[in-house]
């Protein structure tokens, strides 16, 4: 197991290398690089620019610069925000927990819907329930999250009011009511609409996946064997079939993480949720490249780590996977 884990981690090294090179190219190509302002200033001569380049090490060979940049990244030094004059790592560090709360709850909500729906559809394929569920998953998969978000705001914030005090039913944005910062229940109330918007598409996707995976498993020989042994329907379905059917979902969810963060970006933008996506969007509009690159890097690392964890979890959950 530990050799498998080690090898799996070693395998990501070339991937990290490729990603870091691509990112480095972007850093170098980024407009508004370190000397743009100096170049635009008519009072600074060409000689002075060359001197600046020397000071900042911009005239050294690219591989040397790349190595230095990687070293800085490894130490967590991602440069400074152009707009806020603050270390990028600090700004991202403040936002990560908020994004993880949003993504985590949405993930949970999606699974809570998808697992029962997927199981019931697979156990009674082509029933009325299955037909309705399949149609709904098609609808859910085709709904653009940004449109859904706007619709939810219109319905639950603008149109529907609390009958007792006339306030909006749910908050239309933000993470806390003013003066209630740190109140978990208040945050939960603010999470309702963003989580609904974010989890609907995934729950559709996952339930469809689980349905077909479960249908495949139900036709396996070991299911017939289990039936033949006289095990009850419930035991066969849940402890034999479901256990096997749910495994591929682990891999799917890990591979899907990039789209998960993409969805979070939209939802954070629409609902003014102070997470990484919102930070990214604000930075993109202000052309704050160090922040943009920092966020891309951190999300890439998060996705890689999640993929390794999913693979390891798969190895633990499925004894058929060999580690040697």
């Amino acid at each position: 197991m530990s050799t498998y884990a080690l090898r799996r981690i070693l395998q990501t090294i070339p991937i990290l290398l490729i990603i870091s090179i691509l990112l480095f190219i972007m850093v170098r190509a980024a407009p508004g690089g370190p000397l743009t302002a100096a170049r635009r200033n008519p009072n600074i001569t060409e000689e002075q620019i060359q001197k600046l380049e020397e000071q900042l090490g911009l005239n050294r060979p690219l591989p040397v610069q790349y190595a230095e940049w990687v070293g800085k990244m490894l130490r967590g030094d991602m440069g400074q925000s152009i707009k806020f004059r603050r270390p990028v790592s600090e700004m991202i560090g403040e936002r990560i927990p908020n994004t993880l709360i949003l993504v985590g709850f949405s993930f949970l909500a999606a699974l809570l819907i998808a697992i029962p729906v997927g199981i019931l559809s697979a156990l009674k394929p082509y029933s009325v329930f299955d037909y309705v569920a399949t149609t709904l998953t098609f609808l859910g998969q085709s709904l653009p999250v940004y449109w859904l978000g706007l619709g939810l705001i219109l319905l639950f914030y603008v149109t529907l009011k609390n009958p007792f005090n006339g306030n909006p039913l749910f908050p239309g944005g933000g993470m806390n009511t003013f003066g209630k910062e740190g109140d978990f229940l208040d945050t939960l109330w603010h999470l309702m609409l963003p989580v609904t918007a974010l989890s609907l598409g995934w729950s559709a996707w996952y339930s469809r996946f689980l349905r077909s995976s479960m249908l495949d498993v139900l036709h396996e020989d070991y299911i017939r064997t289990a039936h033949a042994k006289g095990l009850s329907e419930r035991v066969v379905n849940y402890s034999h079939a479901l256990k096997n059917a749910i495994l591929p979902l682990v891999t799917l969810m890990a591979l899907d993480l990039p789209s998960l963060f993409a969805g979070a970006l939209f939802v954070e933008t629409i609902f003014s949720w102070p997470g990484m996506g919102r930070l990214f969007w604000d930075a993109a509009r202000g052309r704050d490249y160090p922040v943009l690159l920092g966020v891309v890097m951190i999300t890439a690392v998060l996705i890689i780590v999640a993929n390794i964890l999913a693979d390891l979890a798969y190895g633990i959950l499925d004894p058929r996977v060999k580690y040697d």
Partner: protein
Amino acid sequence: MIEGGKISSRKQGMARLILRRFFKHRLAGLAIGVLIILILSALFASLSPYSPTEQEPINNFKPPSAEHWFGTDELGRDIFTRILYGGRVSLTVGLLSTFSSILIGVIVGALSGYYGGWLDSILMRVTDAFLTFPTLFVLILLGAFLREQPVLWLKNSVLVVIVIIAVLSWMWPARLVRSLFLVLRERDFVIAAHAVGSDSSRIILRHILPNCLGPILVSATLQMAYAIITESGLSYLGFGVQPPTPTWGSILSTAQVHVFKAPWLAFYPGLMIFITVMAINYIGDGLRDAFDPYVIHTGNN
């Protein structure tokens, strides 16, 4: 001659069989109809009496009526007309970026799966690297980058969007095609082709690739749905196709500002994205059934 005739008639039979199976999936047939209507309405958008870009501020924020079917926006432009023109952009981006990403994916997947070895290792590591990229973030980043470069053709934002979507989405078809090639290259007909001395390019193009058509078409529908949602999303965030060119995403984006005053502004562009993506998803479902020899057609019972 006789042999050629036989093969072509068998091919026709196969195509007819697949078509018949496709249209057995009633919703897929309906979806084809919807998609054709969408394409035609985008093609003939200029038949509308209104201009998609000319402003008429006196007529702003008109709710939907007989004159303006979907109402007018903050500058008095007819939303229905703008949506027709927006369809041109969305469908073009969808089709072209899908075509490019499938093309890249097929090339990478075929080389990787057919030759294996070190080529496979390298190509698959690159694929994995691209898969772990937070795609939308990179799309926004590139969108912001490219538009600041002083190169003229990059100003054509539709092209920029097509290219960056394709460059960041070829990995799924590549993986699919690779896995198909891994299986098919061991099959008897490929070994026979080797035995009669066919060269690799002929085996790849004439023997293996045609057998991958079904799964590739299905994955193309997924890619197209993804491309349309992504283009609209990028334009919605302000980093896709730039105004004044109307796209469903950018109409939605301006609508968001006025959503309390004129909710219909946000309703229709989103509805168009939704309908288009759903039609494409259903076509994909129909294709999956049509090409799968084991599927049971019980959905129609």
